[in-house]
């Protein structure tokens, strides 16, 4: 409750690094340098605009308060202004306009400085991620100078704290927009075009992002998780991602893999190291290492996974994944197998 109140009252002003109870997805708490630049611009702009509003509001109310009250049809109009020019009033309007123009120039300057700061993020030792938008999930391809070290994942990004990340943005179908507000502003992902976003997380944490361009039926359920962790932890994660899927260690998991390869699953999904090589849907090689399912909208646990596989439409209507009908044992085996893919 206190948190909510703070959000309402003081939440306009950027508060650096204050922890929040809800998942982190807001522009008011900057955990990366780019969002911090924008946050400073926000504070400045908010301050200036509040001052301007206050000034206009006060003068406006004062004008209303001091004017004599009359009834229109009992009061002849005052036409003195047609004969005598109202120089004082004109000067007042002129000065006010001048001050307003100055304010606008200040805003322009602040914007230009911020743009420059955003464009000057040092890019040495950057992590390169190619993010491709789909209806309604995110495909992430990590690129390395050595292509053998590239890997593919989906819907959950890990990035190292303190190192720049260059995100190349594309789309496979319609326009999507990447937005992880605690780290940076948005960038559109436009079919036929390539754009880039350069950001850096400066605090470890879990940040939520969401697609911010209306992209069809389930636009509301296209979220992502960005996990910022110390470089060593990130490199360990990347190393795991490069490996093929863990081989099944139990009979049930083996049965699960067999089901995956022989059912519809393999026609859309890839699990590296198995016969499943589909390209139309998220890569599942390390599914169990992710905290969410279905593009950030469900917790990644056995129950939700089973429900998702059984009937995705009931959780995310209109998604392109069809329902998969399996006997309860088989479903359990599949879920168990997927649960081993860390």
């Amino acid at each position, binding site marked *: 409750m206190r948190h909510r109140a703070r959000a309402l009252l003081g939440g306009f002003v950027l508060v650096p690094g204050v922890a929040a109870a809800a998942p982190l997805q807001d522009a008011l708490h900057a955990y990366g340098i780019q969002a911090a630049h924008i946050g400073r611009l926000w504070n400045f702009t908010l301050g200036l605009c509040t001052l301007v509003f206050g000034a206009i509001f006060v003068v406006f109310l004062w004008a209303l308060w001091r004017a004599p009250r009359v009834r229109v049809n009992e009061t002849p109009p005052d036409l003195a202004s047609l004969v005598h020019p109202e120089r004082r009033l004109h000067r007042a309007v002129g000065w006010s306009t001048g001050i307003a123009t100055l304010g606008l120039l200040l805003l322009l300057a602040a914007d230009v400085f911020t743009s420059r700061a955003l464009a000057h993020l040092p890019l040495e030792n950057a992590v390169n991620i190619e993010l491709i938008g789909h209806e309604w999930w995110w495909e992430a391809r990590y690129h390395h100078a050595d292509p053998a070290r590239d890997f593919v994942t989906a819907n959950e990004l890990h990035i190292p704290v303190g190192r720049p990340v260059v995100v190349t943005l594309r789309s496979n179908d319609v326009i999507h927009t990447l937005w992880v507000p605690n780290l940076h502003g948005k960038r559109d992902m*436009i079919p036929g075009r390539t754009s880039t976003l350069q950001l850096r997380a400066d605090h470890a944490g879990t940040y939520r992002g969401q697609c911010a361009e209306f992209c069809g039926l389930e636009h509301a359920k296209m979220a992502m998780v960005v996990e910022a962790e110390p470089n060593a932890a990130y490199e360990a994660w990347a190393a795991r991602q490069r490996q093929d899927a863990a081989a099944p260690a139990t009979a049930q998991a083996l049965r699960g893999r067999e089901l995956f390869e022989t059912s519809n699953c393999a026609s859309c999904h890839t699990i590296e190291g198995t016969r499943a090589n589909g390209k139309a849907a998220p890569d599942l090689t390390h599914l169990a290492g992710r905290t969410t399912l279905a593009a950030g909208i469900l917790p990644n646990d056995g129950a939700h996974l089973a429900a998702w596989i059984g009937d995705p439409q009931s959780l995310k209507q209109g998604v392109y994944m069809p329902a998969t009908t399996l006997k309860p044992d088989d479903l359990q085996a599949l879920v168990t197998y997927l649960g081993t893919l860390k």
Partner: protein
Amino acid sequence: MSMAKSPAPPRLAPRDAAQLHQTWSDPPGIIGWFSAINHKTISLRFMVTTFVFFVLGGLLALAIRVQLAQPDGKTVGPDMYNQLFTMHGSTMMFLFAVPVMQAVATYLVPLMIGSRSVAFPRMNAFAYWIFTLGGIMLFVAFLVGAGPDAGWFAYVPLSLLQFSPGKRVDIWAQMITFTEMAGLMEAIVLITTILKMRAPGMTLNRMPLFVWTILATSFMVLFSMPAVMLASTALITDRLVNTQFYNPLKGGDALLWQHLFWFFGHPEVYMIFIPPLGFISTIVATFSRRPVVGYPAMVLAVIATAFLAFGLWVHHMFATNLPELGKTFFTAASLMIAIPTAIQIFCWIATLWTGRLDLRTPLLFVLAFFVILVIGGLTGLMLASVSLDTQLHDSFFVVAHLHYVLMGGAVFPLFGAFYYWFPKFTGRMLGETLGKWNFWLFFIGFNLTFFPMHVLGLQGMPRRVYTYPREMEWGSLNMVATIGAFMMAVSVLLFIVNVVRSRRRGAVAGNDPWGAGTLEWSVASPPPPANFELVPVVHARDPLWEAPKLPSHVTGLANDYREILVTSVADAELDHRLWLPASSIWPFLTALATTVLFIGSVFTPWAVVWAAVPVAIGATFWFWPKKDIVEQRTGSERNPLEVES
């Protein structure tokens, strides 16, 4: 009403006045109803129709708010929700915001400039019909489950056939054709009326500020609406006959749509905003009992705004990969346009400062502008910055901003205008007590609804989402917004009640209940069919406030056919007389034929060919002169070659 002693103005003899009345009246009966072309008749229908669309758009908004009031809302599913917000935006922007301004203008402008009619009265009627039929098409589609669902802005590739199958988007695109055609025609009507039909002596320098705003807006319409017509036509052809304008795989570009759409879309919001600036000038002057400060500055500010509005459109595209330097240019332009608006605001405040005020309902609604529009304008400055915009764009912050500027800048002044001119339209005053309730409920409800959305946007809530998870903790602010929305709904209901009651039982208004200065208040309420028994001669900006001068009126116009006076553009000097056509069913029938053409072409391109035939027939009959009427007039024709004008 002038306080100076004035001699009784000249009048027509009663028999001539009766004949004049008959000449300009609408024909009776059902056929007569469809044949009517008197500008006031058409305009009242137009105002009522746009208001109906406003209420429908509002109901759609209430449905949206019910769905969003709580997290994981189950009131509607994603498909219906996407239709709801598309219909809400499309209805408000295309079927309400600009058309209502044109509707009010086609009523008031002839009266304010001392004319008996608008130019091209039949085209004026046709524009109303085509607009209404287009709106009906859209809502029928929605009611049968084919409502467009790609947003009011219909970005490609989402709105292409591959991602939006069926006919929903085609119907949306064709609705554009209907409404833009109507808008363009009305613009031609208004420009011609304002430039060529002003009463003698009404130089441009003496034209009411409201008329200036309509002139500027109408020019903007001419140059901006073609962009959305072209864009939507290319969208229809991409969907219907496989052109490739927007398909990047075949050389097309998704941003071509955005450029064309926003080249229209940005001026569009100024077209919505500028006529209310005219309302404000009029109402502030009347209720401050003085002319607005700085008339030349006010006129130049409106013209500057109209021009600058064309240079802002890329600020809707700041999140795309357009070159950064180019984007900064649009930041500068978007900031700069605040200057003429600031000048106007300061001049109005100066007027209020030195005025003597009557704080009645029309003025209250106008005063709300100074709070709400100013907030909206300031958040607009925030959005003008590319960097800031990347956090705020496509979030609820923008929803807040756009409603603050559109409602503060247009809807509030529009309600003020209705309270102000309702007596002129109907002869009765709207109830003042109910008016104050209407106002305060609307003001408080509005702020409750939209202020929290600024915070929601900053808290990361994107737009156009049919629901949101509980854990995001956006629920309480959304609930507040929904409560506010229902308050606004009650307020609008009160307005409707006020209108219905006052039509019958409101205080009788008389010619000039507000002691105003402009010409519409010199005639009866409601005005007679011909507006003025004798066209006035104008000698001042506020003719009713200043001492009358001679000559005071025009004589010599016919009473037995619809004759008007045409004057020169800059100085309204006498030029010639013109016979306007009488009532005709053909604008309505041609509009029906055009509707068949437009709706047919949603389904097949061949409709353009075969449906063009009845349209051509209708247009031909519309134009074809009637022998008896022509013979009646040619006896008194005077040609310009005889007369040394």
